[in-house]
Each structure stands twice: as C-alpha cells, then as structure tokens.
C-alpha cells in the first residue's frame, strides 16, 4: 500500500476502504507517470547536452508517442472519474441513512464541538438560537417536549460500534470542518447549513476530530474526539446524560 507507506492512517470505518482504494490507484498512477516522465526527461538532458550533441536538430522528435501517452493519461483519468470518483460521491450523498442509524448533530463553535443526540425518543428538540445561554449552548427550546430527553455533550462524541452514524454538521459562528481522517470523512460545518455525513465505526477506541477549516486564533487547538464504545455502554450513556434543566428551573426560562 503506497498511501500507507506515505503516511495515511489505518481505516477505522466500514466505508473508508473505497476511498483508500481510489487514493491508492491515483497515487500509483501519478507516481508511474512521474517516473516515466522523469526517466525520459533525464535521458534527454544527458543525451542532448551540448558537449555530446553540438549540433541541434531543427525538426526534433518525429514520433507521435507523446500523443499516445497523452491519450493514455486522459483515458485513465476518465476511467477513474467515471468508474470510481463519481460513484463514491453519489453513494455518500444519496445513502445518508435515515433508519437504523444513530442520528447526531455535530455543532461547531470557536473552538470546540457540541454533540446533540435526540435521546431516547429519537426526535431532536426544537432549537432557537435566541435561547442560547451558557447552560443551553445550542439554544434548545425546553418547551418542546421532544427536547426534554435530548443529550448535549462537549467535544467527545460517543458512538456505538458497528452502527451507522448519521451526522449533521453545522456551526454556530464561523465555518469549521469536521474532519475525522481515521473514518475517511470530512465536511464543512457552515452556519445555517446542516451538512450530512455518515459512516460506520468498526473498531473500538478514540479517534480524532480535526477542525479542517481556519476558524480563528484557536483553530490549531480545536480538537474533538470520537469515542467508539459498545452498544450497551452507548445506551447507558444516553440514558444517564440529562441535559435539560430541572423542572423548577424550566419555568423561569422565557
């Protein structure tokens, strides 16, 4: 695997291998091209240096091999484009899971992440940015019954093993990017837009979420984590975490 050799981290998602596959082929392709060209190039420099070839030929190369080579390059590129790149993207866009997946909202801010789970009822509570406070960082409207069991956590996104995650990425302030190289996903978190991504973690452990878009002075230290745990632990986590304020406080919120 040339890309692993070059530094690509191991894949921890069920879907990432298609991307690795294309990455691998493209790199073999460009390396082969470069080496081919380089051999020709250095041979030319050596063969036609003034010392060896004092008189230049007016006509130059007569053969059409370059045209053939160019057609070959184009053909391979078209093949990769139609055969791999476009279909992979189509799957990514079209097959955003709606049933049987864990829905999460990943909400970026300067400089961290909030993860919003719908809780046991599976329905996200209504949000209104005007309700944002320190204790209600994503502006959940507690008068909406669906919001009562919602779970909001900071920076660490827990995810059950072998279960599809249906994530919608957004931001409260500037543009960030949810980039999790180990899962081969990356998507801009843009305020006002809910961008979908999905994948299935297939290995337990903690994985990095890198912020992949300049977002201010803390961009370089904006870190999130995906913690892949067993289903039981995940269920327990959802049950145990309560984000809504106690009933008494609730009434005092306008």
């Amino acid at each position, binding site marked *: 695997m040339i890309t692993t050799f070059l530094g690509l981290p191991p894949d921890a998602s069920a879907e990432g291998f298609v991307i690795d596959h294309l990455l691998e082929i493209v790199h073999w392709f460009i390396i082969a091209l470069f080496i081919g*060209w380089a051999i020709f190039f250095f041979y*030319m420099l050596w063969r036609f240096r003034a010392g060896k070839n004092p008189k230049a030929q007016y006509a130059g190369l007569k053969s059409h091999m370059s045209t053939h080579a160019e057609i070959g390059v*184009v053909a391979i*590129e078209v093949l*990769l484009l139609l055969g791999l790149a476009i279909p992979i993207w189509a799957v990514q866009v079209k097959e955003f899971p709606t049933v049987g997946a864990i829905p999460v909202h990943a909400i970026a801010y300067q400089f961290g992440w909030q993860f919003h789970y719908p809780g046991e009822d599976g329905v996200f509570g209504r949000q209104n940015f005007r309700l944002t406070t320190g204790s209600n960082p994503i502006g959940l409207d507690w008068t909406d019954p669906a919001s009562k069991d919602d779970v909001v956590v900071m920076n660490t996104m827990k995810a059950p093993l072998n279960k599809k995650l249906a994530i919608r990425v957004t931001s409260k*302030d500037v543009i960030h990017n949810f980039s999790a190289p180990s899962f081969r996903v990356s998507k*801009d978190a*843009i*305020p006002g837009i809910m961008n979908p991504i999905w994948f299935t973690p297939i290995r337990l452990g903690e994985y990095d979420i890198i912020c992949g878009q300049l977002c201010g002075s803390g961009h370089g230290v904006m870190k999130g984590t995906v913690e892949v745990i067993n289903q039981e632990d995940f269920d327990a986590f959802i049950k145990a975490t309560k984000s809504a304020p106690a009933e008494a406080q609730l009434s005092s919120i306008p």
Partner: protein
Amino acid sequence: METNINHSNAHTSHDDQGHHEHQELKFWQKYIFSVDHKVIGIQYAITALLFLLLGFALMGYMRYQLAYPDTAAPYGFGKALTALVGQEMAPDGKMSGALYNSFGAMHGTIMVFLAIVPLAVGAFGNFVVPLQVGAGDMAFPKLNAASYWTYLPGGVIMLISFFVPGGAAKSGWTSYAPLSVISDHGPAFHPIMNGQTLWLIGMTVLIFSSLLGSVNMIVTIVQLRAKGLTWMRLPYFVWAQFVTAFLLLLAFPPLQAAGVMQLMDRIAGTSFFMPTGLVVNGQIWDHSGGGSPLLWQHLFWFLAHPEVYVLILPALGIVAEVVSNNTRKPIWGYKSMVYATLFLGVVSFTVWAHHMYLTGMGTKVSSFFQTTTIIISIPSVIILSCLVISLYGGSIRFNTPMLFAVAFMPMFGLGGLTGIPLAFNATNIVLHDTYYVIGHFHYIVAPGTIFAMFAGIYYWYPKATGRKMSEFLGKLHFWPSLILMNGIFMPMFFQGLAGVHRRWHTGGVVNGEALFEVTKHALHWNSFMSWSAWLLAVAQIPFIINFFWAWKRGEKVGDNPWEATTLEWNTPTPPPHGNFLKEPIVYRGPYEYSVPGEDKDFTPSWEEPKKSKTDLVNL
C-alpha cells in the same frame, strides 16, 4: 562572439541615439514617474522582489513557530518580532495564534497578489512583451504608469495593516466569511484601521491596478505587433501573457464585487455573507442575517482559480523562451501549446468549485466540477509534454537561466500531478485542507514559478542592464535552492496524508505532545522543513549579491548575448526610450534555431531572408 551580423549592433555604442528624443528628462521623470514600459517593468520587478522577500520573511517566522512551537526565536529575532507587532500579538517574542494566522494570510496575499503576479505580469510582461512584439512602448504608456502607481499604494496599504491594532488580516488569503467579517470586531473596533478592512481596501486597489495593466497588455499585443508578426509567429511568452491578461481582466472583477460586499458587511453592517442565527462567543450577532457564506466562496474561487493560472502561464512562457534558446532548436509543438493555452484559459473559468467539494455538494454539481478539473489538466499535460519533448534533438547549454528553466519542469510536474488526487472529490475528502494541498501548489508556485522567474531574470538581465549576471554565483544560487525547495515541500505530502492540517499555529504539537494521534508519526518533519526554509533564505544571498553586483560590475555584453531569435534582441542594449532604432519587420516564426542550410545556428526573426522571396508572403 561571432554574432554581430545583425545591423542593429552597429548602434551598440550609444553615442548617436536618444538625440531625436524629446528634451532631457529630469531624474524623476526618467526613473520615478516614467512612462517608459522598461522603467515601469523594472520598478515592478524590484518592488515585487522586495515583496517576495517579505513574504518569505513572514514564512521564516511561521516556520519557526511550526518547528519550535511557543518558543521565542533566538538571536534577537523573537525580540525584533515583539518590537514590530507588539507584546499582545507576540508575547515575549513568541507567536500568538492570531499573529500566526495573520502572517499566514499575509504570506498568501503578498506572495500571490504583491509578489508573483506583479513580477510575472507587471515586470516581465511589461518589460518583454512590447519588445517581443516590436512596439515602441505599451499602447497606453500613461495608463501603464498609473497601473504601477496604484499597485504600490495597494501594497503600502497591506503593509500598514500589519501595524494597526489587532494586526493584519488573519482569515487566510481566502478571507472566508463569516470569520473574515467578524474578525477584529471588538470594543476598540475602528471601522477602517483594522486588518481585514485594510486588506479589502488594499485588494480593491490592487484589482484596479491589474485591470489597467491587463487592458494595456491586450491592446499592445493586438494592436502594436510589428509588421509581419502574425499571430502564429508570436513568441509563446507573448501568448502566455495574452491569455494571462484575459484571465486577470475577466476573473478579477467578481472578486472586486465580492470585496465591496464584504466591505459593506464589515462597515455598513449588511449580511451579504452572514447567515441568520449567528452566535459568536455566546452572543447573538447583531445583524439581519439572510446572507450566504458560500456566496463569498463562489465569488472568491471564481477569481482565484483563474488566478492560479495567472501564476503559472507567464512562468511557462519564460521557460519556453529559455528552453528554445538553450536547446538551440524550435519549441516542439508550438501550435498545440498555443491552442492548449487558449483552451486552458477558457476552461479555467469553469473549475472553481473544486476548492469547495466539502461544503456539501450534491452529486451533479460535484461531478461537473470534477470533470472540468480533469479536463483542465489535459492542456497542462500537453504544454509540459511539449516543453520536455523540446529537449529532444537539442544541443543543450546548461547556463543559469537554462538550469532554472529545466528544473521548473519536474517541479511543475510534481505539483500538477498531485493536483489530480485533489481533483477527485472522493480522495479530496482525505486531503482537503491538509499540507498535501500546500505541497501541491507550492511545488507549482515555488520551485515552479519562482524558478521560472529566476530563469527570466538571468535571461533578460543583460537586455535590461547591458551586463550579464555571474554564472558562478548563479549556479551557487541554483543547486542549493533546488535541493532545499524539495526539502521544504516534499514532506508536506507525507504530512498531508497523515492528516496534518494547514493553518495550525501549533504545528500540531501542544505542550510537547502531538495534539492528534493520527498525525504523530509525521510531525518530526516540521523542523526538517523549517531548516530547509531558513537555509533556502541563505541560498538566496548569492542571487541578491549577483543582482546588484552585476548591475555595475557584470560582464558587458552586446545586443544579442544569447544568440536568440526573438525581437527583443534586435534593440540596442539597454533599449532606449522607444526601443527600436528602426521599425522592425518580422520574416519568420519566433524560434528559428539550427535551421538546416543556414550558416549560423540561429536565424533571427527580423533578419531579411537571403534566399527566396517566398518567405515574404506573409508580410
């Protein structure tokens, strides 16, 4: 040299020329507010080189932060930094995140808009194109001067912005909204004197300058071509400048519009790029909302993709001139290069959103942009192939310009080839915003374009000054530069694949440890790359010495020291105001080297054919 067969050499002694010109010009008319395209070209060149050095200096500091995060640079460099930008931005000589971002944004801005474009277009275009087309000057000399005199204030505005409270623009050279719109907004916010607003104003001024320049360039090429200089006899460099001028002319205005809109967002409180519902720092942002951050990106990249071809086309043009001259044979596939360039110019307006794959694109849109991006790689492959194949059958002289021109090819090749994994959106997911991207384009612009610029400087220096730069110092400049450039940029590909992202002011290390597990095994490259960068700076010293030393002390040369064929070598050296002593006539294509049956290995395009009249048909 046995070259002096062309009649213009009779005038190498400058005694008998210049009298028919107007009355004596004062110093400031001649060298400061000159309208002579050559003087303006040199003004551009020197200003742009200084900006290139500044852009590099900013990067010198940034690379220190990347290699040794949160330590003050030694030998007084850290102290100097604090003295310049203040304790708040550089506490005790250490770079703050804000300062790093500001230097990064300004490195990109300065390199692209104040260094490379002015050097490639303002300097080389201005100096060489009128000579190569056989014109006395640019079509609108005053406009030409106006173009330089708007470029300079644009640059000065950018420089001033380093010293306003909060420092220069720090939202990347891409200035993505909302970050750029909200940046610097604080209690002490001054509506004008803040980094981002000055950046926008500076860009507006620079765009205006480039507009004046590009109109002038196109009119000069279309209208002022010498007799007999038909389109297919134009040197490839002129073609490259021609297409470049069109790119500048048509791609910049939408950014101008976007810049005005962002100014409005910052000053008049509009919401062009600001969506509804922003909560910044826990506070609801006071604005109407309803705008779109993606609108900025579309307008920006609509400019910025054509702009990257502005960075490369003049470089390709220079390389073609130098390669042909030093292989002593015509460029292989001149016509296909010309058509490829025109095609590239047109298609470059249709690929912009390949910078935006991860903004949430549907399949149709992304397929469109992937396809156009792949299509646009074809003309580049053709042009580069033609250049490489031009070596075949040559008699290659490895002088300094040629070394730089030859090195350009594989470097551009590497940069271009690594564009392909970026171009497929599926692989872009892994590579976007990582050092892979930085590596991709730096291979094109640094050991690519900068090397071509060096080639051009060494090549045309004798025409501008009448003296040659030193070959020894030239080679001392070339070899370390080549090696060190690769030392900086090659590891970027490994880092990028490992997930090391760009614009990290920490270099990925926090409190002595890798912040992200995945990147751990790639971070050790940082100090290697930084050392390469600093040594690269040292490696420029021979060039700087050479550049100034040769001005007065370099070996004196005649009018056509490289035994070249294109029209610029048909003038006295240095060319007087008005350039040509008598109107040149062009009899043949631009690269008639080693023509069979000729007694010398170059047949200048202005030399009257001896044999038959049939060559004159095209007059």
